[in-house]
């Protein structure tokens, strides 16, 4: 079957047309992956096409790229998944949020420096004796294997919507890595780790867009792990951050009135005397005024609030039970 590849090219050494697209049509069989086609192009059509790939089986994390607009691994994505009316057309671009070096190859240095910043190694101040292992339940290890399955391919980072506007955000991969240690029963520096993660650009900066969960090729669920980190932080008494306060005020408002008091949310999160922070919100308020979306100043209780409170009770009960 014929497959059309439109590939984004970038050659830093050429002085003309820095960025362009090249189109290749290759003959592939039904089971072919996007990577099979790219390798065929590289070996038989255009030797200058540059990409990273190695294992061909979704384990080395080399071949994340954007295919028809979304980050994925070229080696476990079938070309036939993109068939439309008998045609297969692929738009292949380098992963996003990382500087391009050449064609589909991007610079992972910023990616790794963020991973390194979470102290990514086990800290166990009382390791077992020589020839004795840590005792841990198989469930806890199985749970961790869900995160250890991360192959650091950068698909989540490529499509993270926060990183698009704030390059300093730790990002889903580094935060998932941090979770791996925080939730390891053998690691005893949880408090220290959580404290580091609550800083600006840390766990509270995720906007829960779900993008990372959707594109992760290994089912690592980075956003879910970030939410878990937040839970741990609050449970551990780290309540004095904007993120933690935001969560508390949010919950409080819904629990007591049945819906969110959007006007009070920033006031109570930042504190009424935090003039600096609140002034920073003025442009948002002005925007809201222009588009007539200012929340009501006087917030009333919903008549059905009692049913919402029943939900809260149920959840609380379940949490106590689990504990």
């Amino acid at each position, binding site marked *: 079957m014929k497959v059309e590849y439109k590939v984004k090219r970038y050659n830093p050494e050429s002085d003309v047309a820095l960025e362009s697209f090249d189109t290749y049509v290759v003959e592939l069989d039904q089971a072919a992956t996007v990577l099979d086609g790219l390798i065929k192009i590289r070996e038989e059509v255009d030797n200058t096409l540059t990409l990273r790939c190695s*294992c061909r089986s979704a384990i080395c994390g080399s071949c994340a790229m954007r295919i028809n607009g979304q980050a994925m691994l070229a080696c476990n994505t079938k070309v036939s998944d993109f068939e439309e009316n008998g045609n297969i057309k692929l738009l292949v671009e380098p992963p996003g949020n990382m500087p391009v070096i050449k064609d589909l190859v991007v610079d992972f240095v910023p990616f790794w420096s963020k991973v390194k910043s979470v102290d990514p190694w086990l800290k166990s101040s009382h390791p077992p004796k020589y020839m004795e292992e840590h005792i841990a339940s198989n469930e806890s290890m199985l749970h961790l294997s869900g995160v250890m399955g991360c192959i650091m391919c950068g698909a989540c980072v490529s499509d993270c919507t926060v990183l698009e506007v704030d390059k300093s955000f730790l990002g889903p991969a580094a935060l998932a890595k941090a979770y791996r240690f925080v939730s390891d029963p053998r690691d005893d520096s949880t408090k220290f780790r959580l404290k580091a993660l609550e800083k600006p650009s840390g766990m509270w900066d995720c906007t829960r867009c779900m993008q990372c969960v959707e594109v992760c090729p290994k089912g690592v669920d980075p956003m879910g792990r970030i939410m878990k980190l937040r839970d741990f932080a609050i449970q551990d008494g780290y309540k004095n951050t904007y993120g933690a306060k935001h969560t508390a005020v949010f919950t409080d408002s819904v629990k007591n009135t049945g819906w969110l008091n959007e006007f009070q949310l920033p006031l109570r999160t930042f504190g009424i005397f935090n003039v600096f922070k609140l002034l920073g919100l003025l442009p948002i308020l002005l925007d809201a005024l222009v588009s007539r979306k200012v929340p009501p100043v006087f917030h009333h209780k919903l008549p059905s609030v009692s049913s919402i409170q029943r939900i809260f009770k149920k959840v609380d009960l379940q949490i106590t039970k689990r504990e």
Partner: protein
Amino acid sequence: MLKHDVLIIGAGLAGMRAAVAAKDLGADVALVSKVHPVRSHSNAAQGGINAALGHRGDKWEDHAYDTIKGSDYIADQDAVEIMAKEAGSEVISMEHMGVIFNRDDQGKLGTRAFGGQRKARTFFVADFTGQALLHVLYEQIVKSDVLVYEEWFVLSLIVQDGECSGAVMIDMKSGKIEVCIAKTVILATGGLGRVFEPSTNALICTGDGMALAYRAGVPMMDMEMVQYHPTTLKNNGALMSESARGEGAYLRNIDGERFMAKEGNAPKMMELASRDVVSRSEQKEINEGRGVDGCVLLDCTHLGEKLINEKLPQIRDLAKDFANVDMAKEPVPVRPGMHYQMGGIKTDVNGLTTLPNLYAAGECACVSVHGGNRLGANSLLDTLVFGRRAGEHAAEVSKNRSNPKISSTDVLKKHEEDIEKLLSNNDKNGFVFGSIRKEMGTLMNQYLAVFRDETGMQTALEKLSELKLKYKNIIVPDKGRVFNTALIFTLELGFMLDCAETIAISALERKESRGAHARTDMPDRDDKNWLKHVLVYKENDDAYRVDYLPVVITQWKPEERKY
């Protein structure tokens, strides 16, 4: 010019384990790797790592015996003893570093059964043990702040006055060539799978380190011993881990028969016999018309969905992705496929090669612990035990050696000219890497596979020298310097052709059948004449020399091998 005490080429399990060990002894260590460390091929190891833990009622002697029997008696028994004795502490120390090994009911490390062994002594993390180990070792590299030259490609070793004194390497990001002086150098460059097509190995497994050593005059040992894994997918050669059979999967032919039960196959150990034995049994079924479309069937359907999801999740995905089969519901078609190189750079038990200050460890080395056939889950162990030993020994040796005096400008100039020459070849009749690689891979897989014979191997050797001739007129269409992968592939192809040749030479040399080297024209093992290693030396450009070395036997006398 760069300068280090210990320069480690390769950042897979062997390289990183060596780095951690050398750093612990206070050496100035650097790692070079053509890919980021966590992209190394050790990632792909699925099944697990062997260790006989004495306090659990297993014996290192039993592990050693199984390994030696598996090797068809040409593993060096002193080396195997060391590996089996040190296995336990190596596995446990990986647990201390953070590996999330599967546990038993008491929260202790759990084991699974693996081929060729009488006891379940394989420790594992689901079916991605290699990845779990590799990422944890990388964490240790970050923790101990070892310098890594990421995406640097080593071009050659520096040899002066009969000693190894560093390496020349190219920074792929900029294309700049640098000389790195080192008191000791450790090669940990992994396997050579891509010499064969198809192979379970990653695209980066191109035998670079073996060729680097070979070109520096170091002998390659037992190169004829190439492992064909019994369960690979037809489509792209991807591996269905032995852990499937370890967890109880069956192999069946077209009639649904478990053919391993046949006399002459392995009626006792059945699917869990040694890999060479299982691969031969499969190939016989296929050759004699009892296969299914060139394959036999790996049947996991009786294992149940829960077990498959917990213990074999990755290969279930692989089978779905590449064979379009849900192994919980249907058997998966599999066939023997090139998987591992038992032979390699000859070293002693500290990883030292015949060239002073040059070490090798991991799949590129031949200590030898695998002999004619490697047991599943012994390779990860080999990388860790001998990686650590090489790292320690090199660090000690570096303490007593002053910095080698090298005229780096001359070395640099020569390499720059070589690359320039390569890039400036525009001959219209020239060849590009893709076509030669494919030809080489196909012929190796045809003539040096599960069954071999004199005529085939001779044909292979002749065709290889034709390909080497073509390689002399190779062209690199990409003339740039930044991330020029076409240039890298071309250099790798040069390394692979050297490796391929040593395989064919050694295979022709060994006039018997042993381990993975099964000759249809000489089907019997011949202990009288061939209980020895075959060594190949490079003499000069196109000449080589063959030599032999006796096998070290300590306490296990060769006996008939039956499973």
